[in-house]
Structures are given as structure tokens and as C-alpha cells.
């Protein structure tokens, strides 16, 4: 027994012991398309930096991916360089001490000077940068232009939320198919917030969740309006509820129903043109540029619509990286035009560098090029420490709606209860 106590004592004493260097930097990546995109540019980065790179596959769903990362980062065994699905999680990681301040490296890279202003804005919090933004996710509504036109349903930009839901109801009546999907529930992970809730919230009467003093305003009108919109979708049976409750909820509606014309509108990002239904898809929609159109997200009161822009999988360096300097060097090299084009080709997100647009590789992605004009209308929603909890709470609230266990007010209450339970009453406005 004494031996074990001693080992524990030594262990505790050396808890903060510094790490060692190695000549290999391990990069975490998940999902086949993204792994392919990264592998395509790894030789280039290795050549540029003189550092060996190993790409390690992580679990596919974002929720499992983040859990795995966190347990490893805390143990100090994690990857050297990794990404997080959106900017929403960054602050929870940086305040936990898992991330290295890379302000100097990112600002010093030529990527930074060429970045879209919105990318720079999203990467910097209080003058500190923890991430190298590479891709931007631009999200809005995507609809089956061909099916709706044939059924005689208008494809004009809906003026407000009522117009949107009425359009969905009309489409369902005329075609008999499910007409509108927005990610909801727990199993979709962060997507329930990033690809769904956030879009509506940014265009509701109270477009922010975080107050000036860093607490969360979850009882706002905007939150209620979003849940009410969800409730209307479910009551009108325009949304396919079944798949949303299973594991991997996106597979059936997005990869099967939408290409088959059994689902007519959905929120999505630019990647849908490439990965979900485009050239990289297993179920490509022929002539996708004409068959699928986009609407900006309408405003609840009919004000100007907007698209939602977010950093997509920005890269960061782990504070327990074996060789922090080498990892920083790799990170800086990851801001290259080639990497962004490779990811655009495989996964369909937009480069965060304006000059990447000019590259041949990107210009060939004809479906993506016109989307770039909309970046100017891009909006985002601010985050604060504890945001992962808010995202989980939104998942739980919307899942109760899906199951018919709660109405909009009930769902909002679930969100408020969950967040105050986990973060404490004082974090909830």
C-alpha cells in the first residue's frame, strides 16, 4: 500500500511537469471527407515546416469527438493539433487551459492579412487568438427548386417565419412529402444549435444569448419564438420526427430523403452542395445548382433576412502538445490556400481567405462561388464560457418537443433548468 501511496504522491507532485519534444506532430481529424482533405495537403505542410505529421482518426459524431478530446486533453495524452466544430466551444476549452495562445503565429501568417473580416472577428476574443480559422460555414435554408416549382409552390425568399412555415405546409399539402427539416434533439449534438437554433435566434426579436456581464439570457422572447417555431413545425407534421430521435439523425433525412425528393427544405451549410448532395456524395442530385436553391434565413418580423456565418473546425494547438513550437509552426502552415481549397473540395465549406477564392481549385467548385457574395450579409451569435452547456440544453429542450413531452414553453423551461442546474442559477438571466 505504501508503494502506491508514494507513486500517487510523486504523480501529484509532477502533475505540472513539462512535456518533452518530438519530431512528429499529431493532428486529430474525423469523418472520412475531412480526413481525405487533410491527407491531401499533409505532404505539403511537412515539406514547408520540415516536421513529420501523423493524422489520427477520431469518432465521427461531434459529441463523441468532443468527449474523447476532452478526456485526452485533461490526461495530457491528446493530439497536438486539433479542431473544434465551431467557435462556440473555443472559450470553454481556452478557459480550461487546454489551448495555447497563438496570437503571434496567426497574426504573423500571411493567411491573416487575407482573411475575410468576419473570420478575423470570430477568431479573436479580447485580443487573444487561440485558433487558426481555415474554413467558414455559411448556413441558410436549402430547398428543392425542381420539386417545388413542379408542384407550383413559390420559391421566392420567404418574408418572415410565418411565410416560411406556411410555405412548408403548402409544399407538404401539394406533394405529400415532408417539407422542412431543422436539426433538433440531443443526438444531433452541436448541430441542433449551430445548424438550427442559431439561425432562427439570430433573426428573432432578441438575437443574442449572452448578456453584457457574461450570463445567459434564456428566458428571452427570441428563445421562446424559436421553440414556438419548432412546435409549429412538429404540429404541422412538416418535419420528419423519427430520424431525429435515432442515433446519427442526419443520415436518413439529409443523405437519403432530400436527394430522393422526399424532403423539400432544410437548413444546411454550403457543404450540402458538395458533400451531402454534390460531387462527393453517395447520392448526388443531378444538376444540383439548378435543382437546389437557397433562401436566406427570414426575420421573425419580416426585417432583412441574413445568412449565418461561423468558423468551421478552426484549428488549435493543445497546451499539452509534445512540442508546442513545432505544433505552432504546423498550425501557421495550415492557413494555406491549398489546405482551404482541399477542404472546400471535399467537404464544401468556404475558405476564410479572400485570396483562396481566386485559386483555380476553388473556382472549379461552381456551386460554391456564387455563395461568397452572401458572406457580406453574414451574421453570428456571440458565445461565452459555459456555452457547451447551453447547446446541450437546447438539444434537450428540442428533444422534449420532438417527443411531444413539452410545448414551446416547456422546452424553454427545460433549457433554463438544465443550464441553471449545471452552471448555477447565477449564470442564467
Amino acid at each position: 500500500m505504501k508503494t502506491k501511496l508514494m507513486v500517487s504522491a510523486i504523480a501529484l507532485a509532477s502533475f505540472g511537469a513539462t512535456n518533452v519534444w518530438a519530431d512528429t506532430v499529431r493532428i486529430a481529424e474525423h469523418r472520412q471527407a475531412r480526413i481525405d482533405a487533410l491527407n491531401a495537403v499533409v505532404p505539403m505542410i511537412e515539406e514547408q515546416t520540415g516536421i513529420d505529421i501523423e493524422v489520427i482518426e477520431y469518432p465521427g459524431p461531434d459529441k463523441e469527438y468532443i468527449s474523447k478530446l476532452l478526456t485526452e486533453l485533461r490526461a495530457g495524452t491528446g493530439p497536438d493539433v486539433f479542431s473544434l466544430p465551431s467557435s462556440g466551444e473555443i472559450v470553454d476549452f481556452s478557459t480550461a487551459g487546454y489551448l495555447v495562445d497563438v496570437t503571434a503565429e496567426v497574426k504573423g501568417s500571411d493567411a491573416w492579412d487575407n482573411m475575410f473580416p468576419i473570420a478575423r472577428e470570430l477568431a479573436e476574443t479580447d485580443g487573444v487568438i487561440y485558433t487558426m480559422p481555415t474554413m467558414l460555414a455559411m448556413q441558410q435554408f436549402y430547398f428543392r427548386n425542381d420539386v417545388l416549382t413542379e408542384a407550383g409552390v413559390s420559391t421566392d425568399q420567404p418574408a418572415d417565419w410565418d411565410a416560411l412555415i406556411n410555405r412548408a405546409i403548402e409544399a407538404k399539402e401539394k406533394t405529400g412529402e415532408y417539407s422542412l427539416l431543422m436539426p433538433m434533439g440531443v443526438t444531433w449534438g452541436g448541430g441542433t444549435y449551430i445548424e438550427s437554433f442559431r439561425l432562427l435566434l439570430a433573426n428573432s426579436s432578441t438575437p443574442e444569448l449572452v448578456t453584457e456581464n457574461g450570463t445567459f439570457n434564456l428566458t428571452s422572447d427570441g428563445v421562446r419564438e424559436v421553440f414556438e417555431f419548432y412546435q409549429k413545425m412538429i404540429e404541422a407534421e412538416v418535419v420528419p420526427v423519427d430520424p431525429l430521435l435515432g442515433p446519427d439523425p442526419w443520415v436518413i433525412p439529409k443523405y437519403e430523403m432530400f436527394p430522393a425528393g422526399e424532403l423539400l427544405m432544410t437548413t444546411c451549410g454550403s457543404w450540402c452542395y458538395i458533400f451531402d448532395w454534390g460531387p462527393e456524395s453517395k447520392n448526388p442530385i443531378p444538376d444540383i445548382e439548378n435543382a437546389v436553391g437557397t433562401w436566406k434565413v427570414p426575420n421573425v418580423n419580416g426585417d432583412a433576412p441574413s445568412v449565418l456565418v461561423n468558423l468551421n473546425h478552426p484549428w488549435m494547438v493543445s497546451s499539452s502538445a509534445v512540442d508546442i513550437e513545432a505544433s505552432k509552426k504546423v498550425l501557421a502552415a495550415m492557413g494555406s490556400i491549398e489546405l482551404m481549397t482541399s477542404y472546400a473540395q471535399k467537404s464544401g465549406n468556404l475558405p476564410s481567405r479572400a485570396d483562396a477564392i481566386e485559386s483555380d481549385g476553388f473556382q472549379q467548385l461552381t456551386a460554391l462561388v456564387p455563395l461568397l457574395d452572401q458572406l457580406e450579409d453574414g451574421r453570428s451569435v456571440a458565445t461565452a464560457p459555459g456555452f457547451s452547456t447551453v447547446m446541450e440544453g437546447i438539444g434537450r429542450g428540442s428533444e422534449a418537443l420532438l417527443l411531444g413531452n413539452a410545448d414551446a414553453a416547456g422546452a424553454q423551461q427545460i433549457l433554463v433548468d438544465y443550464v441553471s442546474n449545471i452552471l448555477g442559477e447565477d449564470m442564467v438571466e
Partner: protein
Amino acid sequence: MLVLPSAILLFAFVLYPSGVAIYTSMTNLSLTGPAALNPRFIGFDNYTKLFSDHTFWRSLVITFWFVLFSAIIGQLVLGLLSAILLKRQFALRPFFNAIILMPNAVPGVVAALMWSSMLASGEYGTLNKIVAWFGVDPQRWLVTFPLSMIIVVNIWRGIGFAMILMNSGLSAISEELYEAARMDGATTWQAFRKITLPLLVPTIFLYLLVSTVTTIAIFALIYALTRGGPAGATEIVGIYIYNQSFGSYQLGYGSAIAVVLLIFSLIIGTFYVRALKVEV
């Protein structure tokens, strides 16, 4: 001296962690945010929170139903039934015996995979095809009846074990007793009630304790099949601890639940020792 290595391991990986659990449960340790870097000592706050957390109580209730229906009722009844039916020698006996034992050998993750196909929604799911013969519409088994379904799956996995134990209990009952009963003109059912059941009580009791303990500890099967969902409907207490700790990142709060579960288990264990009059 020969016991020392075992004692050291048990101390390092069971007793010491239990102590750590008690300490952690009094902090706000988290995997993310500032509380990951500098956890604060918060006394019994986690426990006060726990007692007013209705999802915790719900998970206790779910655990209770899960254990009651899958281990105590389902596995026992079907296990006893199979043991009785297979008691006598007949041609196909080894064949049936092997079939009923088979699910027992399947690892939890694989069982979850097999049943995710069985219970798949839509008209092509295997179970939906089967019930279609009886004119039942396709169901969303894991959505509409999640708890019942994991109970069905767990019964499936445990019949074999119950059968083996019951079998050994049955074979200890003297055949002469049945002879005598038959002489007195007792029916099969009377013989079962008056002879088999009373004499099986010790075996049943032993089985109940073993299976209660193992059923509470189930993790892989439920985690891989539902992760505790939908909406926490299959979140038995072990899954709840895992989800709170590694899904919501609240290690301190997760530890508080763990401590409660530890205490529960120790109560069951003490009961175990007492009731079985364990001789050491």
C-alpha cells in the same frame, strides 16, 4: 504475504478511488471552462443539487424498473421455464440448451449492434417485418417504447444464466418427492407449487442477488444502443453518471451521483452477506 499484491491493487483501483470520488463530489471540478483549471471546494452543494434534480430521481426510477423487469422478473421466469422444460433428457435437448445459452456469450456492444437492426424503425426493420404478419403497423421501437425495449434486450441476454442456475437447483431436488406427490394424486401444477418452488427458494434468492448486482452495473449494452436516450428514457444510473461526467463534463457532480450509487451498492452488498449467511 501472498495476499498483499491483491490487496495493493484493490486498494489502488477501488478503495482509493472511492475516497477520491467522495472528495471530488465536494468540488465543482469540470472538464471544460475555468472549473477544469481551478476546481473549487463547494462542500455539499452537489448533493443538495442532486436531491432536487428530477433527472437524477428519474434515472433511479428507470434503474429500478430496468432491474425489476429484466433481471428479477423476465430472466428469472423465462430461465426457470427453460430449465423445467429442459430438465428431462430428449433428443433435441442439447440443441435448445445451446440456443438459449448463446446470447449470454455475446459481448454487450455486439448485442447492441444486433438489436439495433432488430429494432430498426420503418417497414424494413426485422421486428417490424415480424409484427407485420400479425397485422401490426411498423413501430419506432426505440423511440416509442425505449425502456421496454432495453428490458427485452437484457432479458434476451440473461435467460441462459438464469437457466443454468435454476437447472442446478432443480437437479438437487430428489425425484422421490415427485414420485410421492404423484402417488397422492397431485397435479403437475400442485407439485410445482408445493415441491419445486419452495425447494428452489435458496437458488432463486442467490440468483436474484447476483443478477441485481450485475444488472445495475450494465453499461455497454445501453450506451451503445441508446446512449441513455431518447430524452433520458433509458438513462439508468450508471449511464447517467457517465453522461453527466463525460457528456456534460461535470466531474464533480458526476462523482456525487457515483457516491450515492456506491452507498446503494454497499447496502445491497451487506444485505447479500447477511441474507446468504456467507461463511468465511
